[in-house]
Protein backbone atom coordinates (compact mmCIF):
# COMPACT_ATOMS: atom_id res chain seq x y z
CA UNK A 1 0.00 0.00 0.00
CA UNK A 2 2.68 2.37 1.12
CA UNK A 3 4.73 1.53 -1.93
CA UNK A 4 1.73 2.01 -4.20
CA UNK A 5 1.18 5.49 -2.82
CA UNK A 6 4.80 6.43 -3.29
CA UNK A 7 4.54 5.26 -6.88
CA UNK A 8 1.49 7.49 -7.33
CA UNK A 9 3.32 10.66 -6.32
CA UNK A 10 6.44 9.58 -8.15
CA UNK A 11 4.49 9.38 -11.42
CA UNK A 12 3.86 13.09 -11.27
CA UNK A 13 7.40 13.93 -10.27
CA UNK A 14 8.89 12.24 -13.34
CA UNK A 15 7.73 14.70 -16.03
CA UNK A 16 8.28 17.68 -13.75
CA UNK A 17 11.83 16.81 -12.86
CA UNK A 18 12.39 15.43 -16.36
CA UNK A 19 11.57 18.64 -18.18
CA UNK A 20 13.78 20.69 -15.90
CA UNK A 21 16.62 18.17 -16.18
CA UNK A 22 16.44 17.83 -19.96
CA UNK A 23 15.75 21.43 -20.86
CA UNK A 24 17.70 23.23 -18.16
CA UNK A 25 20.41 21.10 -16.62
CA UNK A 26 21.42 19.21 -19.75
CA UNK A 27 21.81 22.43 -21.78
CA UNK A 28 23.50 24.04 -18.78
CA UNK A 29 26.13 21.29 -18.65
CA UNK A 30 26.26 21.14 -22.43
CA UNK A 31 27.11 24.84 -22.60
CA UNK A 32 29.82 24.32 -20.01
CA UNK A 33 31.38 21.45 -22.03
CA UNK A 34 30.82 23.27 -25.29
CA UNK A 35 32.86 26.19 -24.08
CA UNK A 36 35.96 23.96 -24.05
CA UNK A 37 35.41 22.62 -27.55
CA UNK A 38 36.55 23.97 -30.86
CA UNK A 39 34.26 23.83 -33.90
CA UNK A 40 35.76 20.49 -34.85
CA UNK A 41 35.10 19.11 -31.38
CA UNK A 42 38.61 19.17 -29.93
CA UNK A 43 39.30 20.24 -26.40
CA UNK A 44 40.64 23.77 -26.35
CA UNK A 45 40.84 26.97 -24.37
CA UNK A 46 40.62 29.12 -27.50
CA UNK A 47 37.05 30.17 -26.75
CA UNK A 48 38.11 31.65 -23.44
CA UNK A 49 41.05 33.40 -25.05
CA UNK A 50 38.63 34.93 -27.53
CA UNK A 51 36.28 36.00 -24.77
CA UNK A 52 39.13 37.55 -22.82
CA UNK A 53 40.28 39.43 -25.89
CA UNK A 54 36.92 40.65 -27.16
CA UNK A 55 34.60 40.77 -24.20
CA UNK A 56 36.50 41.72 -21.04
CA UNK A 57 35.28 45.26 -21.40
CA UNK A 58 31.69 44.09 -21.93
CA UNK A 59 31.76 41.95 -18.80
CA UNK A 60 32.94 44.91 -16.75
CA UNK A 61 30.35 47.08 -18.46
CA UNK A 62 27.63 44.58 -17.51
CA UNK A 63 28.73 44.36 -13.90
CA UNK A 64 28.94 48.15 -13.78
CA UNK A 65 25.43 48.62 -15.13
CA UNK A 66 23.97 46.00 -12.79
CA UNK A 67 25.73 47.57 -9.80
CA UNK A 68 24.63 51.07 -10.77
CA UNK A 69 21.00 50.01 -11.29
CA UNK A 70 21.06 48.14 -8.01
CA UNK A 71 22.35 51.27 -6.28
CA UNK A 72 19.49 53.34 -7.74
CA UNK A 73 16.93 50.70 -6.83
CA UNK A 74 18.21 50.29 -3.28
CA UNK A 75 18.52 54.01 -2.64
CA UNK A 76 15.02 54.83 -3.83
CA UNK A 77 13.57 51.55 -2.57
CA UNK A 78 14.83 51.94 0.99
CA UNK A 79 13.71 55.53 1.38
CA UNK A 80 10.37 54.87 -0.28
CA UNK A 81 9.69 51.73 1.74
CA UNK A 82 10.71 53.53 4.92
CA UNK A 83 8.14 56.18 4.09
CA UNK A 84 5.52 53.58 3.20
CA UNK A 85 6.23 51.59 6.36
CA UNK A 86 6.11 54.56 8.71
CA UNK A 87 3.29 56.59 7.18
CA UNK A 88 1.60 54.16 4.83
CA UNK A 89 0.29 55.18 1.43
CA UNK A 90 -1.83 52.57 -0.31
CA UNK A 91 -1.93 54.41 -3.64
CA UNK A 92 1.83 54.86 -3.97
CA UNK A 93 2.36 51.26 -2.88
CA UNK A 94 -0.03 50.08 -5.57
CA UNK A 95 1.57 52.25 -8.23
CA UNK A 96 4.98 50.77 -7.52
CA UNK A 97 3.64 47.27 -8.11
CA UNK A 98 2.76 48.10 -11.70
CA UNK A 99 6.22 47.55 -13.25
CA UNK A 100 6.20 43.98 -11.95
CA UNK A 101 3.37 43.19 -14.33
CA UNK A 102 4.74 45.00 -17.35
CA UNK A 103 6.59 42.50 -19.59
CA UNK A 104 10.33 43.05 -20.06
CA UNK A 105 9.96 43.66 -23.80
CA UNK A 106 7.33 46.29 -23.18
CA UNK A 107 9.61 48.00 -20.68
CA UNK A 108 12.37 47.89 -23.29
CA UNK A 109 10.20 49.38 -25.99
CA UNK A 110 8.57 51.98 -23.73
CA UNK A 111 11.94 53.15 -22.45
CA UNK A 112 13.24 53.23 -26.02
CA UNK A 113 10.60 55.74 -27.10
CA UNK A 114 10.59 57.53 -23.74
CA UNK A 115 14.34 58.11 -23.56
CA UNK A 116 15.03 58.54 -27.29
CA UNK A 117 16.76 61.75 -28.43
CA UNK A 118 13.40 63.17 -29.45
CA UNK A 119 11.43 61.07 -27.02
CA UNK A 120 8.88 62.18 -24.50
CA UNK A 121 11.34 62.79 -21.68
CA UNK A 122 13.57 65.11 -23.71
CA UNK A 123 10.52 66.91 -25.11
CA UNK A 124 9.24 67.55 -21.63
CA UNK A 125 12.58 68.66 -20.26
CA UNK A 126 13.01 70.92 -23.31
CA UNK A 127 9.64 72.52 -22.59
CA UNK A 128 11.01 73.92 -19.35
CA UNK A 129 14.16 74.94 -21.19
CA UNK A 130 16.69 72.65 -19.56
CA UNK A 131 18.02 71.17 -22.79
CA UNK A 132 18.19 72.18 -26.43
CA UNK A 133 16.42 69.80 -28.78
CA UNK A 134 18.70 70.72 -31.68
CA UNK A 135 21.40 68.79 -29.95
CA UNK A 136 19.52 66.48 -27.62
CA UNK A 137 21.24 64.19 -25.13
CA UNK A 138 20.25 60.59 -25.68
CA UNK A 139 19.63 58.36 -22.73
CA UNK A 140 18.39 55.48 -24.83
CA UNK A 141 21.15 53.52 -26.55
CA UNK A 142 23.46 54.32 -23.63
CA UNK A 143 24.53 52.68 -20.39
CA UNK A 144 22.42 55.19 -18.48
CA UNK A 145 19.31 54.28 -20.47
CA UNK A 146 19.80 50.56 -19.79
CA UNK A 147 20.40 51.27 -16.11
CA UNK A 148 17.28 53.39 -15.81
CA UNK A 149 15.14 50.81 -17.61
CA UNK A 150 16.47 47.99 -15.42
CA UNK A 151 15.98 50.09 -12.32
CA UNK A 152 12.41 50.90 -13.36
CA UNK A 153 11.51 47.27 -13.92
CA UNK A 154 13.24 46.04 -10.75
CA UNK A 155 11.88 48.79 -8.54
CA UNK A 156 8.60 46.91 -8.15
CA UNK A 157 10.39 43.80 -6.93
CA UNK A 158 12.54 45.89 -4.63
CA UNK A 159 9.54 47.61 -3.10
CA UNK A 160 7.79 44.28 -2.66
CA UNK A 161 10.77 42.64 -0.95
CA UNK A 162 12.01 45.59 1.09
CA UNK A 163 8.55 46.59 2.23
CA UNK A 164 7.88 42.98 3.15
CA UNK A 165 11.03 42.94 5.27
CA UNK A 166 10.19 46.32 6.82
CA UNK A 167 6.65 45.18 7.60
CA UNK A 168 7.97 42.19 9.52
CA UNK A 169 9.66 44.59 11.97
CA UNK A 170 7.16 44.91 14.80
CA UNK A 171 5.51 48.29 15.21
CA UNK A 172 6.74 48.68 18.79
CA UNK A 173 10.38 48.90 17.65
CA UNK A 174 9.42 51.95 15.61
CA UNK A 175 7.29 53.42 18.37
CA UNK A 176 10.15 53.06 20.81
CA UNK A 177 12.24 55.20 18.45
CA UNK A 178 9.39 57.61 17.71
CA UNK A 179 8.97 58.01 21.45
CA UNK A 180 12.40 59.66 21.51
CA UNK A 181 11.64 61.86 18.52
CA UNK A 182 13.01 59.80 15.64
CA UNK A 183 11.41 60.89 12.36
CA UNK A 184 10.70 58.67 9.37
CA UNK A 185 14.27 58.80 8.04
CA UNK A 186 15.83 58.05 11.43
CA UNK A 187 13.38 55.21 11.99
CA UNK A 188 14.29 53.81 8.58
CA UNK A 189 18.06 54.08 8.95
CA UNK A 190 18.39 53.29 12.67
CA UNK A 191 15.75 50.61 13.09
CA UNK A 192 14.19 49.25 9.89
CA UNK A 193 17.32 48.94 7.79
CA UNK A 194 19.59 47.20 10.34
CA UNK A 195 16.78 44.95 11.51
CA UNK A 196 16.05 43.71 7.99
CA UNK A 197 19.63 43.69 6.74
CA UNK A 198 19.71 39.98 5.89
CA UNK A 199 16.46 40.08 3.89
CA UNK A 200 17.76 43.11 2.08
CA UNK A 201 20.98 41.31 1.24
CA UNK A 202 19.02 38.43 -0.30
CA UNK A 203 16.85 40.86 -2.24
CA UNK A 204 19.94 42.67 -3.52
CA UNK A 205 21.53 39.41 -4.65
CA UNK A 206 18.35 38.42 -6.46
CA UNK A 207 18.10 41.71 -8.27
CA UNK A 208 21.82 41.90 -9.06
CA UNK A 209 21.87 38.48 -10.74
CA UNK A 210 18.69 39.17 -12.67
CA UNK A 211 20.17 42.43 -13.92
CA UNK A 212 23.42 40.71 -14.92
CA UNK A 213 21.36 38.22 -16.91
CA UNK A 214 19.01 40.78 -18.42
CA UNK A 215 18.49 40.27 -22.11
CA UNK A 216 15.36 41.79 -23.58
CA UNK A 217 15.79 45.27 -22.11
CA UNK A 218 19.36 45.83 -23.35
CA UNK A 219 18.40 44.13 -26.62
CA UNK A 220 15.87 46.90 -27.21
CA UNK A 221 17.58 49.99 -25.85
CA UNK A 222 21.25 49.08 -26.03
CA UNK A 223 23.37 50.79 -28.63
CA UNK A 224 24.56 49.08 -31.80
CA UNK A 225 28.14 50.10 -31.20
CA UNK A 226 30.40 50.32 -28.20
CA UNK A 227 30.18 48.07 -25.17
CA UNK A 228 27.31 45.58 -24.84
CA UNK A 229 25.72 43.64 -22.04
CA UNK A 230 27.08 40.08 -22.03
CA UNK A 231 23.73 38.46 -22.82
CA UNK A 232 23.55 40.51 -26.02
CA UNK A 233 27.05 39.34 -26.92
CA UNK A 234 25.99 35.72 -26.37
CA UNK A 235 22.92 36.22 -28.55
CA UNK A 236 24.77 37.92 -31.40
CA UNK A 237 27.61 35.40 -31.26
CA UNK A 238 25.05 32.65 -31.86
CA UNK A 239 22.61 34.25 -34.29
CA UNK A 240 25.06 36.16 -36.47
CA UNK A 241 28.18 33.99 -36.28
CA UNK A 242 26.83 30.61 -35.22
CA UNK A 243 29.81 30.47 -32.87
CA UNK A 244 28.51 28.34 -30.03
CA UNK A 245 31.99 27.79 -28.56
CA UNK A 246 32.64 31.43 -27.80
CA UNK A 247 29.00 32.05 -26.86
CA UNK A 248 29.16 29.21 -24.36
CA UNK A 249 32.44 30.46 -22.94
CA UNK A 250 30.82 33.82 -22.42
CA UNK A 251 27.83 31.99 -20.95
CA UNK A 252 30.09 30.23 -18.45
CA UNK A 253 31.58 33.56 -17.46
CA UNK A 254 28.05 34.83 -16.80
CA UNK A 255 27.29 31.70 -14.73
CA UNK A 256 30.38 32.37 -12.65
CA UNK A 257 29.36 35.99 -12.13
CA UNK A 258 25.92 34.86 -11.05
CA UNK A 259 27.14 31.92 -8.99
CA UNK A 260 28.81 33.99 -6.30
CA UNK A 261 25.47 35.60 -5.79
CA UNK A 262 23.61 32.34 -6.35
CA UNK A 263 25.54 30.45 -3.66
CA UNK A 264 24.78 33.17 -1.18
CA UNK A 265 21.12 33.10 -2.15
CA UNK A 266 20.85 29.33 -2.00
CA UNK A 267 22.45 29.24 1.42
CA UNK A 268 19.97 31.73 2.79
CA UNK A 269 16.93 30.10 1.22
CA UNK A 270 17.80 26.51 2.10
CA UNK A 271 18.72 27.44 5.65
CA UNK A 272 15.06 28.11 6.41
Amino acid sequence: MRRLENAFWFTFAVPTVGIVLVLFFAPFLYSAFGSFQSKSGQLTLDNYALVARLYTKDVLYTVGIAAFSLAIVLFIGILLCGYLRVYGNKLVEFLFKIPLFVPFVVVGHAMRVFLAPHGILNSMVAQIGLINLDNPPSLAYSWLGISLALAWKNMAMAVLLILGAFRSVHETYLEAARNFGAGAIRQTLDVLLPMSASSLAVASVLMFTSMLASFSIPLMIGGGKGAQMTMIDVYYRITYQGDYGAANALGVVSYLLASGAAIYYLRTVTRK
Partner: protein
Amino acid sequence: MKVDPGAMGRATVKIAFLALVLFIIFGPLSSLAIWSVAEKWYWPYALPQQVGLFYWGRVLGSDLMRSLQLGFFIATVVTMLTLLCTVPVGYALARFDVLFKSVIMMLFLLPQAFPQLPVFANAAVLLYKFDLGATIPGVVLIHMVGSLVYAVWIMTAVFKSIPVEMEEAAINLGASRIRAFLSIALPLAVPGIVASSLLVFLYSLDEFTGTLLIGAPFVVTLPVFMYNASMGYELQVASITALLLMIPGMVLLVLLERYLKAEYLSMFGRI
Protein backbone atom coordinates in the same frame (compact mmCIF):
# COMPACT_ATOMS: atom_id res chain seq x y z
CA MET B 1 -11.39 72.07 14.09
CA LYS B 2 -8.41 74.40 14.00
CA VAL B 3 -6.68 75.16 10.74
CA ASP B 4 -3.10 73.98 11.00
CA PRO B 5 -0.73 76.38 9.23
CA GLY B 6 1.60 73.45 8.45
CA ALA B 7 -1.21 71.39 6.95
CA MET B 8 -1.24 73.35 3.69
CA GLY B 9 2.50 72.89 3.27
CA ARG B 10 2.27 69.20 4.04
CA ALA B 11 -0.55 68.77 1.54
CA THR B 12 1.53 70.51 -1.12
CA VAL B 13 4.50 68.24 -0.46
CA LYS B 14 2.24 65.22 -0.59
CA ILE B 15 0.73 66.24 -3.92
CA ALA B 16 4.16 66.98 -5.38
CA PHE B 17 5.38 63.59 -4.19
CA LEU B 18 2.41 61.84 -5.74
CA ALA B 19 2.95 63.71 -8.99
CA LEU B 20 6.57 62.54 -9.02
CA VAL B 21 5.55 58.95 -8.42
CA LEU B 22 2.93 59.14 -11.16
CA PHE B 23 5.55 60.54 -13.54
CA ILE B 24 8.08 57.82 -12.69
CA ILE B 25 5.58 55.02 -13.17
CA PHE B 26 3.46 56.35 -16.02
CA GLY B 27 6.01 58.55 -17.82
CA PRO B 28 7.57 55.69 -19.78
CA LEU B 29 4.20 54.03 -20.31
CA SER B 30 2.59 57.25 -21.52
CA SER B 31 4.90 57.31 -24.51
CA LEU B 32 3.29 54.05 -25.62
CA ALA B 33 -0.16 55.60 -25.48
CA ILE B 34 0.94 58.67 -27.38
CA TRP B 35 2.73 56.68 -30.06
CA SER B 36 -0.25 54.37 -30.48
CA VAL B 37 -2.42 57.24 -31.70
CA ALA B 38 0.25 59.26 -33.50
CA GLU B 39 -0.60 59.27 -37.20
CA LYS B 40 1.92 61.94 -37.99
CA TRP B 41 4.70 62.94 -35.62
CA TYR B 42 7.87 64.61 -36.74
CA TRP B 43 10.55 66.32 -34.85
CA PRO B 44 10.58 69.01 -33.40
CA TYR B 45 6.97 68.85 -32.27
CA ALA B 46 6.46 67.87 -28.64
CA LEU B 47 3.21 66.11 -29.44
CA PRO B 48 1.94 64.35 -32.59
CA GLN B 49 0.64 66.69 -35.30
CA GLN B 50 -2.08 64.29 -36.24
CA VAL B 51 -3.85 61.99 -33.84
CA GLY B 52 -6.19 59.14 -34.70
CA LEU B 53 -6.98 55.50 -34.51
CA PHE B 54 -5.69 54.67 -38.00
CA TYR B 55 -2.92 52.38 -36.78
CA TRP B 56 -5.21 50.66 -34.28
CA GLY B 57 -7.49 49.66 -37.12
CA ARG B 58 -4.57 48.50 -39.22
CA VAL B 59 -2.90 46.55 -36.43
CA LEU B 60 -6.05 44.80 -35.28
CA GLY B 61 -6.60 43.48 -38.80
CA SER B 62 -3.04 42.23 -39.15
CA ASP B 63 -0.92 39.26 -38.05
CA LEU B 64 -1.14 40.59 -34.55
CA MET B 65 -4.43 38.85 -33.95
CA ARG B 66 -2.87 35.54 -34.94
CA SER B 67 -0.02 36.10 -32.53
CA LEU B 68 -2.49 37.00 -29.83
CA GLN B 69 -4.51 33.83 -30.33
CA LEU B 70 -1.38 31.72 -30.52
CA GLY B 71 -0.05 33.26 -27.29
CA PHE B 72 -3.28 32.56 -25.44
CA PHE B 73 -3.37 29.01 -26.74
CA ILE B 74 0.21 28.33 -25.66
CA ALA B 75 -0.36 29.98 -22.28
CA THR B 76 -3.46 27.86 -21.65
CA VAL B 77 -1.64 24.63 -22.50
CA VAL B 78 1.39 25.62 -20.40
CA THR B 79 -0.79 26.50 -17.42
CA MET B 80 -2.75 23.26 -17.53
CA LEU B 81 0.31 21.06 -17.92
CA THR B 82 2.15 22.99 -15.21
CA LEU B 83 -0.73 22.55 -12.77
CA LEU B 84 -1.00 18.88 -13.53
CA CYS B 85 2.72 18.44 -12.85
CA THR B 86 3.27 20.75 -9.90
CA VAL B 87 0.23 20.28 -7.66
CA PRO B 88 1.12 16.66 -6.74
CA VAL B 89 4.84 17.40 -6.65
CA GLY B 90 4.35 20.44 -4.44
CA TYR B 91 2.17 18.38 -2.14
CA ALA B 92 4.69 15.55 -1.96
CA LEU B 93 7.53 17.97 -1.25
CA ALA B 94 5.51 19.72 1.45
CA ARG B 95 4.36 16.55 3.19
CA PHE B 96 6.77 13.66 2.70
CA ASP B 97 10.41 13.03 3.29
CA VAL B 98 10.86 12.40 -0.39
CA LEU B 99 14.06 10.72 -1.42
CA PHE B 100 16.68 13.34 -2.35
CA LYS B 101 14.29 16.08 -1.24
CA SER B 102 16.99 18.70 -0.83
CA VAL B 103 18.46 17.77 -4.20
CA ILE B 104 15.07 18.23 -5.85
CA MET B 105 14.48 21.56 -4.12
CA MET B 106 17.92 22.66 -5.28
CA LEU B 107 17.07 21.51 -8.79
CA PHE B 108 14.16 23.90 -8.80
CA LEU B 109 16.12 26.76 -7.28
CA LEU B 110 19.16 26.88 -9.53
CA PRO B 111 17.34 27.94 -12.71
CA GLN B 112 16.21 31.01 -10.84
CA ALA B 113 19.73 31.97 -9.95
CA PHE B 114 21.48 31.49 -13.29
CA PRO B 115 21.21 33.41 -16.58
CA GLN B 116 18.62 31.80 -18.84
CA LEU B 117 19.79 32.90 -22.26
CA PRO B 118 22.93 30.76 -22.67
CA VAL B 119 21.00 27.75 -21.35
CA PHE B 120 18.03 28.30 -23.62
CA ALA B 121 20.32 28.77 -26.59
CA ASN B 122 21.70 25.28 -26.01
CA ALA B 123 18.23 23.92 -25.23
CA ALA B 124 17.22 25.23 -28.66
CA VAL B 125 19.95 23.13 -30.27
CA LEU B 126 18.58 20.11 -28.43
CA LEU B 127 14.98 20.82 -29.42
CA TYR B 128 15.97 21.24 -33.08
CA LYS B 129 17.62 17.81 -32.91
CA PHE B 130 14.22 16.37 -31.97
CA ASP B 131 12.47 18.40 -34.70
CA LEU B 132 10.79 20.55 -32.05
CA GLY B 133 12.48 23.78 -33.11
CA ALA B 134 10.10 26.50 -34.33
CA THR B 135 7.09 24.39 -33.37
CA ILE B 136 4.38 25.03 -30.82
CA PRO B 137 5.29 21.98 -28.66
CA GLY B 138 8.86 23.25 -28.54
CA VAL B 139 7.74 26.65 -27.29
CA VAL B 140 5.39 25.03 -24.76
CA LEU B 141 8.27 22.93 -23.43
CA ILE B 142 10.62 25.87 -23.06
CA HIS B 143 7.91 27.89 -21.30
CA MET B 144 7.39 24.99 -18.96
CA VAL B 145 10.98 25.06 -17.78
CA GLY B 146 10.41 28.50 -16.31
CA SER B 147 6.87 27.91 -15.11
CA LEU B 148 7.60 24.56 -13.44
CA VAL B 149 10.48 25.95 -11.47
CA TYR B 150 8.32 28.79 -10.29
CA ALA B 151 5.14 26.81 -9.66
CA VAL B 152 6.80 24.00 -7.68
CA TRP B 153 7.98 26.50 -5.12
CA ILE B 154 4.60 28.18 -4.85
CA MET B 155 2.75 24.86 -4.57
CA THR B 156 5.11 23.63 -1.88
CA ALA B 157 4.54 26.85 0.03
CA VAL B 158 0.77 26.61 -0.44
CA PHE B 159 0.59 23.05 0.89
CA LYS B 160 3.00 23.80 3.71
CA SER B 161 0.65 26.54 4.87
CA ILE B 162 -2.18 24.04 5.32
CA PRO B 163 -1.91 22.44 8.76
CA VAL B 164 -1.07 18.77 8.39
CA GLU B 165 -3.41 17.98 11.29
CA MET B 166 -6.37 18.65 8.99
CA GLU B 167 -5.43 15.68 6.84
CA GLU B 168 -4.32 13.58 9.78
CA ALA B 169 -7.80 13.98 11.20
CA ALA B 170 -9.23 12.58 7.95
CA ILE B 171 -6.70 9.72 7.82
CA ASN B 172 -7.45 9.03 11.46
CA LEU B 173 -11.08 8.54 10.51
CA GLY B 174 -10.12 6.03 7.85
CA ALA B 175 -9.39 8.05 4.71
CA SER B 176 -6.48 6.99 2.53
CA ARG B 177 -3.64 9.43 1.98
CA ILE B 178 -4.82 10.14 -1.55
CA ARG B 179 -8.40 10.61 -0.44
CA ALA B 180 -7.26 12.98 2.31
CA PHE B 181 -5.33 14.91 -0.31
CA LEU B 182 -8.31 15.09 -2.67
CA SER B 183 -10.97 15.93 -0.12
CA ILE B 184 -9.04 18.05 2.39
CA ALA B 185 -5.74 19.50 1.15
CA LEU B 186 -6.73 20.17 -2.44
CA PRO B 187 -9.88 22.22 -1.70
CA LEU B 188 -8.00 24.23 0.92
CA ALA B 189 -5.22 24.92 -1.59
CA VAL B 190 -7.56 26.28 -4.25
CA PRO B 191 -6.88 29.99 -3.63
CA GLY B 192 -3.13 29.40 -3.86
CA ILE B 193 -3.53 27.22 -6.93
CA VAL B 194 -5.69 29.83 -8.66
CA ALA B 195 -3.21 32.61 -7.85
CA SER B 196 -0.26 30.62 -9.13
CA SER B 197 -2.00 29.46 -12.30
CA LEU B 198 -2.83 33.07 -13.12
CA LEU B 199 0.82 33.96 -12.64
CA VAL B 200 1.99 31.02 -14.75
CA PHE B 201 -0.48 32.02 -17.47
CA LEU B 202 0.87 35.55 -17.44
CA TYR B 203 4.45 34.32 -17.45
CA SER B 204 3.83 32.25 -20.57
CA LEU B 205 2.00 35.12 -22.26
CA ASP B 206 4.90 37.51 -21.58
CA GLU B 207 7.80 35.11 -22.12
CA PHE B 208 10.26 36.47 -24.64
CA THR B 209 13.76 35.01 -24.49
CA GLY B 210 12.82 31.35 -24.90
CA THR B 211 10.17 32.07 -27.51
CA LEU B 212 12.59 34.14 -29.56
CA LEU B 213 15.26 31.43 -29.48
CA ILE B 214 13.04 28.40 -30.03
CA GLY B 215 9.90 29.69 -31.73
CA ALA B 216 11.35 31.96 -34.42
CA PRO B 217 10.51 32.32 -37.19
CA PHE B 218 7.27 30.32 -37.24
CA VAL B 219 5.95 30.58 -33.72
CA VAL B 220 5.52 34.29 -33.12
CA THR B 221 3.82 35.24 -29.87
CA LEU B 222 2.91 38.80 -28.99
CA PRO B 223 6.18 39.76 -27.26
CA VAL B 224 8.19 38.57 -30.27
CA PHE B 225 5.78 40.31 -32.62
CA MET B 226 6.27 43.53 -30.65
CA TYR B 227 10.04 43.14 -30.68
CA ASN B 228 10.06 42.70 -34.43
CA ALA B 229 7.86 45.76 -34.92
CA SER B 230 9.97 47.89 -32.58
CA MET B 231 13.21 46.83 -34.24
CA GLY B 232 11.67 47.56 -37.64
CA TYR B 233 10.89 51.09 -36.39
CA GLU B 234 7.18 50.52 -36.79
CA LEU B 235 6.76 52.48 -33.60
CA GLN B 236 2.98 52.79 -33.79
CA VAL B 237 2.49 49.07 -34.35
CA ALA B 238 4.96 48.23 -31.58
CA SER B 239 3.34 50.66 -29.17
CA ILE B 240 -0.15 49.33 -29.80
CA THR B 241 1.12 45.79 -29.32
CA ALA B 242 2.87 46.85 -26.12
CA LEU B 243 -0.35 48.32 -24.78
CA LEU B 244 -2.24 45.13 -25.61
CA LEU B 245 0.50 43.10 -23.95
CA MET B 246 0.10 45.09 -20.76
CA ILE B 247 -3.62 44.45 -20.41
CA PRO B 248 -3.50 40.90 -18.96
CA GLY B 249 -0.84 41.92 -16.43
CA MET B 250 -2.80 44.95 -15.30
CA VAL B 251 -6.00 42.90 -14.96
CA LEU B 252 -4.11 40.35 -12.92
CA LEU B 253 -2.53 43.02 -10.73
CA VAL B 254 -5.94 44.42 -9.86
CA LEU B 255 -7.32 40.91 -9.33
CA LEU B 256 -4.48 39.88 -7.08
CA GLU B 257 -4.27 43.14 -5.18
CA ARG B 258 -6.70 41.84 -2.56
CA TYR B 259 -4.84 38.68 -1.77
CA LEU B 260 -1.45 39.44 -3.19
CA LYS B 261 1.14 37.34 -1.44
CA ALA B 262 4.55 38.89 -1.56
CA GLU B 263 6.46 35.61 -1.50
CA TYR B 264 4.74 34.33 -4.64
CA LEU B 265 5.43 37.51 -6.51
CA SER B 266 9.03 37.90 -5.51
CA MET B 267 9.86 34.86 -7.60
CA PHE B 268 7.72 36.09 -10.44
CA GLY B 269 9.77 39.24 -10.73
CA ARG B 270 12.77 37.26 -11.90
CA ILE B 271 11.38 35.25 -14.75
